[in-house]
């Protein structure tokens, strides 16, 4: 039956490779395809949140903070439900981190709020005695890059079909829609609306003034990102 193959070592090797890879493919691919689907309740990032994510990456927050809760009781007690792969469906790149000098931030939006982040980013030791995290005062002055965030939104929408302007099922059965602005000006306006709601919960007068004047400081975008991590 296999005389032809048995006389040809090269094609025999190819056939062995195909047979073995087939086993691998039917085991790995279906699971992978299923696990990489967005989890119900996972939303794409809004423009402001994405700008905050860029601030997070720019300041190398992922050098010390992970975004990956492992299924151990010690971790879920501290950080909340363990992470599932579908929750990273819209993370490009993912920011799992490989080192946990600071705590995990996967679900920080569940147990920290805008005012706490403001205090903490200004003076970490002021709220967490003994913290070795540095202060990030420049985030209160630098302006967030909304243009790049909007460009990324358009890119992932076009290339990866990230579902902006579509109804997304949420965990409680309701539907949510994340808006992708039609023009850059509209994106700026939307981000500013979102920033105003956050600045209203903040104390820093300079930040409030900047937002009132139409500027979005980096800290506001970062807090929007932090609050979105649930």
């Amino acid at each position: 039956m296999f005389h032809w193959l048995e006389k040809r070592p090269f094609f025999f090797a190819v056939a062995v490779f195909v047979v073995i890879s087939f086993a691998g493919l039917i085991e790995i691919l279906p699971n992978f395809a299923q696990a990489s689907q967005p989890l119900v309740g996972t939303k794409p990032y809004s423009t402001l949140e994405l700008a905050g994510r860029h601030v997070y990456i720019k300041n190398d927050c992922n050098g010390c903070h992970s975004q990956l809760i492992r299924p151990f009781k010690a971790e879920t007690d501290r950080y909340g439900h363990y992470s599932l792969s579908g929750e990273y469906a819209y993370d490009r790149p993912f920011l799992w981190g490989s080192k946990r000098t600071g705590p995990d931030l996967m679900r920080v939006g569940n147990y920290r709020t805008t005012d706490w982040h403001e205090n903490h980013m200004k003076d970490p030791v002021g709220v967490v005695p003994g913290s070795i995290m540095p202060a990030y005062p420049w985030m209160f002055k630098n302006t967030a890059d909304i243009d790049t965030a909007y460009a990324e939104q358009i890119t992932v929408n076009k290339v990866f079909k990230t579902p902006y302007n579509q109804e997304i099922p949420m965990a409680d059965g309701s539907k949510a829609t994340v808006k992708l602005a039609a023009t850059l000006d509209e994106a700026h306006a939307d981000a500013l609306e979102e920033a105003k709601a956050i600045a209203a919960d903040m104390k820093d007068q300079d930040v409030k003034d900047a937002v009132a004047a139409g500027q979005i400081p980096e800290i506001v975008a970062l807090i929007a990102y932090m609050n979105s991590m649930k």
Partner: protein
Amino acid sequence: MNKLMVFGVVFVLALLGLTWVIAGGQMGDDIVNKLAMLGAVATATIAIFVALKYIRQMQTDKASGKLADENWDGIGEYKNELPFGWAIIFFGSIIWAIWYFLAGYPVNAYSQYGEYNEDVAAHDAKFEAQYANMDESSLKAMGESIFIVQCAPCHGLQADGIDGKAADLHHRIAENSVKAVIMNGSNNNLVGTGAPMPDRNGLLNANTGALITDAEIDTVSKYVAGGMQGTEGADVFAGTCAACHGADGKGMDMVAPNIAEMSPSLVDAVIHHGKKGVIGTMPAFTNLTEVQAKAIDAYVSSLSK
């Protein structure tokens, strides 16, 4: 008995003798050691005699039987019957593989999440059994240790709110908070459900028959923040606040929260629903178990006493 057989017997005896020399003195009365020694004897005997059988077969057997069609550079292959034992194992493995594929692996496979769930369930059961009936002091002790982990990052290790960055839990309420609530109203689920308090445009002073004034807000704020001591502001409180919060300020079920003191039920409502006030927003802590929430309630309400 030929030479080979004699060699085999001598070799087995030599092996057993060597084993006895090395391990025999340490046998003691342990049954496991004796079984192991018995196993060693059996293994050596079987191995030697099986080997001898095949060595003799190689010496005496003649090549015979039907050759297969394949011939690789002069090397041929006899068409032998499938050995019976081998065939049993082969077909048995096929049946086992079907079972393993359909039922064995899917049902019994190791799962990290499964282990986690078992872990948590076991811990919770133990925790609940151990702390089912706690007295006040051990509740407070547990509450304090939970406080350090869950609450201290905002309220501070001393529960003083770290210079106004969070609520100072040694007092029921600060003056600026009272003022902000009167000015803006409040809807914080502090009685367990939504029972919104109106802003100043809905607060009538029954003594004067008019809306509460700025001066009255100042005095009543001082009065409430001061623990409702003294007389200044007491009349405004009686005329404006007492209707819902009660004459003693201890609140009414499902109507208005206790503003005279930190009661366990008040703390419980804040923990389960969170709170948004003039200081900032506190998230809800839904990750705590019932016992843990009770412990926090007991500890935090004890701070102001």
